[in-house]
């Protein structure tokens, strides 16, 4: 493999030489070694970071065109610095035994387990739907524990909560050697807690979490209903907060709406900044598709992008999946991609999209908005008529528009049982028959939701 790499580098060098001046080549590229080439990435070993800075800033177009002409397509270029030579010392040639050090360096960069290196701020597409969350995350990454603490990010499935959190982790992990970043899901937190109780090593458990400089907890809503875990987390939270350590949490709903979460935790979660992620608008979806296509080196016609962006609305993950499917079909079959072909390929996704377009959450929001009641009232135990009836309408709509079972609907409305839901549906139906005004209102909300 070594021989292959060095052969490849010889070829690249030959393509590169005519494009840069002789002095430039000698100065910047003669000491470079190619250590690996995959289908989408070329790894270059440079003697120290000035090579990386200077080549990145000045010679990337030349390097990319050389890569394209030799390898037949663009590749991402990754630089690995052999040694951190200090300023002023003469450029040291890479010595033998370096590869071990390089590996160590690469491992260090990746030291926080669970962080996906693809989830960075650079790869995040910003649109009006996630502007605030992105800006807040970036501010947190740039000056942790100074601006917004804790940062609470919430939004639906596949809208980028995890991406933003991991981006914060990577940003800080890459920047300060001494920053201890901990990233985990609340489920893992709970499991480790249970494990710690079982094996009676709570002290070790506490020490582990309370020493972090940056604690990132994903899907915090799973803490709902787990009382001991909540208590443990409460103390961890306080310790970190008092020590001016940054805490970032993500959830699929606002803190106040997480079922069975203690009030002292809710109020703490709302202490810093709460940022919502909303489904992307069509322009943002276009941008996401293009960015993804660019990183995956997929080339598609504009109308295909357009089709995907307009038809798949709710979920970024699904959008990317559809893109992958279309692209792999195109490259495997070599057939022309027409509307019909794409539609056929994505049949199941599009159907799902049409059906699942309405979620109970959306229904609750819409109904709450229409009747001007608080969203929290949808799940609360309060039952004066001006709250109870909208809630019953929402249950009815949930029954009609989603595939959720009576039990699921009851659960989503603050843990009511299926009988309550059934009663609500019957009642609403009856009143729709009796009063035109109610029927009109409901069909208005219905059509607004379907749109």
């Amino acid at each position, binding site marked *: 493999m070594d021989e292959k790499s060095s052969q490849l580098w010889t070829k690249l060098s030959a393509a590169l030489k005519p494009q840069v001046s002789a002095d430039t080549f000698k100065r910047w590229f003669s000491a470079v070694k190619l250590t690996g080439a995959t289908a989408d990435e070329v790894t270059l070993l440079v003697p120290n*970071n000035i090579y990386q*800075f200077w080549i990145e800033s000045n010679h990337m177009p030349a390097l990319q065109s050389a890569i394209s002409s030799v390898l037949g397509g663009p590749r991402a270029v990754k630089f690995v610095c052999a040694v951190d030579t200090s*300023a*002023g010392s*003469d450029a040291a040639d890479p010595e033998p035994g370096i590869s071990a050090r390089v590996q160590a360096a690469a491992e260090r960069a990746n030291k926080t387990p669970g962080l996906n290196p693809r989830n960075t701020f650079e790869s995040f597409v910003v649109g009006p739907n996630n502007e605030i969350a992105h800006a807040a995350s970036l501010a947190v990454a740039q000056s942790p524990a100074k*601006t917004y*603490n804790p940062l609470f990010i919430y939004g639906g499935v596949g809208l980028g909560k995890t991406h933003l959190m991991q981006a914060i982790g990577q940003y800080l992990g890459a*920047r300060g050697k001494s920053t201890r970043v901990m990233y985990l899901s609340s489920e893992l937190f709970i499991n480790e807690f249970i494990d710690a109780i079982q094996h009676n090593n709570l002290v070790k458990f506490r020490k582990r979490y309370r020493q972090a400089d940056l604690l990132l907890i994903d899907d915090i809503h799973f803490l709902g209903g787990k009382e001991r875990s909540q208590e443990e987390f409460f103390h961890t939270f306080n310790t970190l907060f008092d020590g001016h350590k940054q805490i970032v949490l993500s959830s699929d709903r606002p803190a106040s709406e997480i079922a069975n979460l203690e009030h002292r935790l809710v109020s703490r979660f709302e202490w810093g900044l709460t940022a919502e992620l909303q489904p992307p608008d069509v322009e943002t979806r276009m941008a996401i598709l293009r960015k993804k296509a660019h990183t995956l080196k997929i080339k598609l016609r504009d109308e295909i992008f357009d089709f995907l962006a307009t038809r798949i609305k709710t979920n970024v993950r699904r959008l990317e999946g559809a893109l992958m499917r279309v692209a792999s079909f195109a490259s495997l079959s070599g057939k022309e991609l027409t509307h019909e072909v794409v539609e056929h390929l994505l049949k199941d996704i599009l159907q799902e999209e049409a059906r699942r377009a309405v979620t109970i959450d959306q229904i609750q929001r819409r109904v709450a908005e229409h009747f001007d009641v608080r969203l929290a009232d949808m799940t609360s135990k309060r039952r004066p008529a001006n709250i109870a009836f909208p809630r019953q309408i929402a249950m009815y709509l949930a029954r009609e528009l989603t595939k959720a079972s009576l039990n699921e609907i009851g659960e989503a409305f603050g843990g009511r049982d299926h009988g309550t839901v059934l009663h609500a549906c019957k009642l609403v139906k009856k009143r729709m028959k009796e009063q035109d005004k109610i029927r009109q209102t409901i069909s208005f909300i219905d059509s607004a939701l379907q749109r």
Partner: protein
Amino acid sequence: MKFSVTKEKLLECLQQVQNVVSTRTTLPILSNVLLQTNGSEVRLTTTDLDVGVRGSFEAQIEKEGATTLPARRLFTIIRELPSSEIQFDVDGKNAASIRSGQSFFKILGLPEEEFPPLPKFDDSKVVTIRQKDLRDGLRKTSYAISTDETRYVLNGVLFSFKDNKLTLVATDGRRLAMLDIDLEFPRSHEADIIVPTKAVTELQRLLTDDGDVRVSVGGSQIAFDLNNSLLVSKLIEGNYPNYRQVIPGEMKERVTLERETFLNSLRRVSLLASDKSNSIKLNFSKNNIDITANTPEVGEAKESLPVAYKGREFSIAFNPEFLMAPLRNLAEDEIFLDLIDEMSPGVIKIQSPFLYVLMPMRISS
């Protein structure tokens, strides 16, 4: 604490220290300025935990003490006061009464104990530099600092103490400014340290043309002790890249240019450099440089500059902002522009040990 002072003295000192105070901070105490009596002086201190500045002014002190007051608010009040005589009276609960002429203000502060102390420099290496030299050196280099936060080691100026020289370096990957200051110090004091941008900016505000500055380096902190003010800053951790690698070897062509004439021509022509490519072209021919810029669908600009030039004819393109930055900050009348060819970096030099390396842009013709 109780003292009286003239408005001018207090305002000048506040101006020195107030820029460090950050507008958004989670610790309320950091938006305050610490006031302490010290002999016949009052000392003002501000910090954002990364950079701290202390200044002092002469005052008539009636009662000693210390307190902290909101810095921005204090500054705006003092600036607006009608009379030149100001009396300060701070009670035991950190409420300050300010009297001046017919005006009376009362502002509430926080106790001094909450204010984070500036780090101590007991066991540190000390070097003395003439303020004028350092001010001049920072002015000629600091504009090249990178603002790209992912390359954090470049977000500051390198202070390299070596071989009885202090070398200041700043680069952002496309250009590099470097300057040497002759200094005497023992070999044991040789070190490479990176001073962050904010500290450099604040330091430039404090430096004057007279006197010396004592630079102490200890651990990961640096202190600049001026006549009656002090700046303390954290250093950027990490190794500054090997900048010598960037400096081109043998140069082929040299032109001598009048700095101001050249700068003015560039400024005029750059008005038509397009936002997109943002380049300005220098076309060298016998005894002449044509400076040109054009933006498709907008127009073009051209200016001829007679120079003594006998080399071959060629063109080279630069980012106009990057070319003008050193010209604005140098003070010399004459500068030298050294070039190799259209693809190699250009170098701006002056009579004294200074160097500015600038990468050319690709000419698409």
